[in-house]
């Protein structure tokens, strides 16, 4: 389980990734090991079925949504760089991070995290959570005792509460507004093992 820098160099674009995502060399190495563990066919790319190796995901109501979030629309595979980039969203936010305006928003900033969360709902990436998309997520999160009518009324109410411009969908800004009291950094971060 060595984490010498030299083995990091075996990973393509490692330095770039580290810069971009803020992961340390040890993190990247570890994630690479994990990637290779999941990539049973050693083809350098992961497919949705590979995530099936993670058994606990079957027990997660939104497990499949998360898996699909790794794949950009239209793509069937995900390579290591994309894998890392997605996971970078979950790094704890760096306080006191000073960056000039020209730099791109880091992956683990609050806005990017929120965007990721937004995409859980907005599967077709049209920038709005429609009622149907909301229903889908609600359906997944609630027990089977909840009837269709009850689901509808919950979705109805949720949209009512959040939808400010009355377009019967929740845009990213409305989403962000409705979650402004939530400590996104805390709720969407995990500490990555060295």
């Amino acid at each position, binding site marked *: 389980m060595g984490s010498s820098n030299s083995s990091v160099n075996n990973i393509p674009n490692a330095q770039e990734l580290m810069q971009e995502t803020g992961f340390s060399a040890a993190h990247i190495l570890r994630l690479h090991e994990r990637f290779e563990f999941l990539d049973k066919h050693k083809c350098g790319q992961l497919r949705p079925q590979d*995530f*099936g190796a993670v058994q606990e995901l*079957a027990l997660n*109501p939104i497990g499949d949504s998360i898996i699909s979030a790794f794949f950009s629309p*239209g793509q069937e595979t995900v390579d290591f760089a994309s894998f890392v980039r997605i996971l970078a969203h979950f790094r704890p936010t760096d306080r006191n991070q000073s960056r000039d305006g020209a730099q791109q928003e880091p992956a683990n900033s609050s806005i990017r995290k929120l965007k990721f969360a937004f995409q*859980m709902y907005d599967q077709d990436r049209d920038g709005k959570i429609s009622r149907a998309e909301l229903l*889908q997520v609600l359906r997944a999160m609630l027990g089977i005792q909840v009837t269709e009518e009850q689901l509808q009324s919950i979705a109805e109410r949720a949209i009512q509460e959040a939808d400010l411009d009355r377009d019967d969908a929740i845009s990213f800004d409305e989403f962000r507004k409705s979650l402004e009291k939530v400590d996104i950094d805390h709720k969407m971060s*995990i500490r990555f093992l060295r």
Partner: protein
Amino acid sequence: VTHCSVWPWYRQITSLTSETEHGHGSVITGIPIVTFKWHHVETPYLVALWILVAGLGKLVIEANHHVTSVIPESALLICFGFILGGIIWGADKVQTFKLTPTVFFFYLLPQIILDAGYSMPNKLFFSNMGAILIYAVIGTCWNAASLGLSLWGCHKGGAMGDLDLGLLQYLLFGSLMAAVDPVAVIAVFEQVHVNEVLFIMVFGESLLNDGVTVVLFNVFDAFVSLGGDKIDAVEIIKGIISFFVVAFGGSLVGFVFGLLISLLTRCTKNIQIIEPGFVFVLGYLAYLTAEMLSLSAILSIVFCGMCCQKYINSNMDERSVTTVRYVMKVLANGSETIIFVFLGISAIDKEIWVWNTGFILLTLLFVLVYRFIGVFFLTWILNKFRLVPVELIDQVIMSYGGLRGAVAYGLAVMLDENKIKEKNLMVSTTLIVVYFTVILQGITMKPLVNWLKVKRAAVGELTLIEKVQDKVFDHMLVAIEDISGQIGHNYMRDKWNNFEEKWMTCILMKPSARKNRDYVFKVFHKLNLKDAMRYVTEGERRGSLEFVRNETAFIDFKKKFDDDFSEVMPDIMADTSDDYNPVPSVSLEMHEQTMNGMRPLEDVNSHHLLQQHLYKGRKQHRHRYSRSHFDVNKDENEVQEIFQRTMRTRLESFKSGKMGVAPLKHITKHLKKDQQQKVRASEFILLDNLHYNNNIRASASSFPMRVTYRAGAGIENPAFMPDLDPMAQVQIPPWLAEAEVDSSMVAPSQRAQLRLPWTPSNLRRLAPLRISAHSTDSFMLADAPAAQQRDNDQLPPPPPPPAPPHGDHM
């Protein structure tokens, strides 16, 4: 219960009867029709009577739930013991019954610990093993040393008056006072639903610290006998070595016995009726063997239970497993009750009480303060290494929950009064500390936790989105943790798992049990569609995949699947009213209802629905172990539900991914045009490839088919539709009836649009499922002859050729 002297009136009666029986001469005057032979049955009768009394006490106490939710049951039992003790003392003027160390250590304690070990969530325990060990070993040593030294210091300072105690004796007292008691801890923590990590740490610590306590106690006892001058470096080193020997030796003994039990249950197929007995007997033997070798008996029986649980649960018949669990709970609960009652009774005894204000008060103070200091300091160190730091609140709870109990009392009574002149003082102090911690700390624990929680919780109304999103975040984090291998991926653990699977399971588990284990998971990890289909049908035949067809079928996943998996499936014990949750839903709900009386009822219902039915997810706090409840709880179904749903949709996506899809847009058109045609309507059956009832139920909610973002739809698989009657009237599921369906549709495949699903007779062919977007396969050919029957079908014009298959999202 060994100081049995009979009650006065018994005495009179026995003397009467003995006179009649034996007389002063040796001649019986007549045949006695009935005789009263008290002495004959004295001991067992009293034992049984006490058990009954303790049980009745518990009955009375549990009668009123309100009382027990404020005052923990253990405290009430102690009070009950006080009352009983008072009665007995009043009658006898001497305390005839008390909790003797023999009875306690040999007959009352083992079953409690065996229950703890057997029900221990192993994975959780071992993943927090480091923390637990640090608290148990270093924490206990710190407690002992600090208490002993401080008391000695105070003694020197004159705070305690004139006592005949030396430094060593203070240290001895410190060591018996240091141990956090497993019995008391469980009893109190049952009221307070804390998160599982915190629970396992306190519980684990209370179990493991016995190793330390035994060593410390024996070492200091020996030192006291030797006398202060004989202690040199050699003795101290011997002491340290003995710690390792005792701890590891005890665990090893337990481990060996655990293996024995597993091996034994492997062969007990023909004597299933007494299978459970072996578990208890061997467990008890593990305890006694360790005790015999002067190793740590508690560690032994804990590891015995922990080691064997997996294997005996697989090897034994279901009913035997149930029996074992039930009997363990009965025994453990019963013992605990008796212990607390007797702790109360033992107090009412004039002889043991020696009051020394300084000693007692200082002990109380130091016990509490040093516990806090110890926990906070150790946690500070630990948090540097832990992935998930232990929060402040948890630390407070952990410190406050360091209860002392009967173990300390038992050890105190075992002191030799010749060596330690002030034994009675120590016993009295121990009792006072036990009462203080169990009663006072027990009562105030829950309010303290609530107060702390409320301070932390965000105040204010939460919107539905916030509530849902809160849960989404939880699930998301769990998923990301799993994907990035944060929890599962551990070199040592992997090595152990490999070793275990290769060797131990082979030897210790029955072959038939082994085979069942990850059958279904192998299925779903097969990437090849064909194999998946084959496995699934085979599995269906065998019945283990019943859930795929029948959503109400309940499979005992625990028994059937990989034990790894069953560890992930929790025993969900928390009631929803007591969530340790940053989103304090329940209190908010009340708040909402009172504050917004004007709000239409429906809105409150939505929040209430959400509150009730949101899946809890793994981060939610649950009890894994409870002494007073079996783990039958409706929330267990939650995980079943999720699993079933996920597996269904994945299976569908396997098929859809390979079998080809039709683009989404078309379905809308079809919908609008063809809703009347019942023929057309049958296409919607295809959406539920896995749902095969004759009547698609009117309220689609009963089958919450997750209509997903996936663009794929399955071709119908004949294997899954044997009893489908295409002529049955079907209703259009509401989600389809809606005009706006964009990405949430699952489109029927091309083939399905042209042809109806089949009647049972023709569906036995599985093999020729060709992987192509245009499903012009043998089905078409096979269907051809029967096509004439479908004259009145109005087939729509074939849709335009489908776009290339959309991405294979699972």
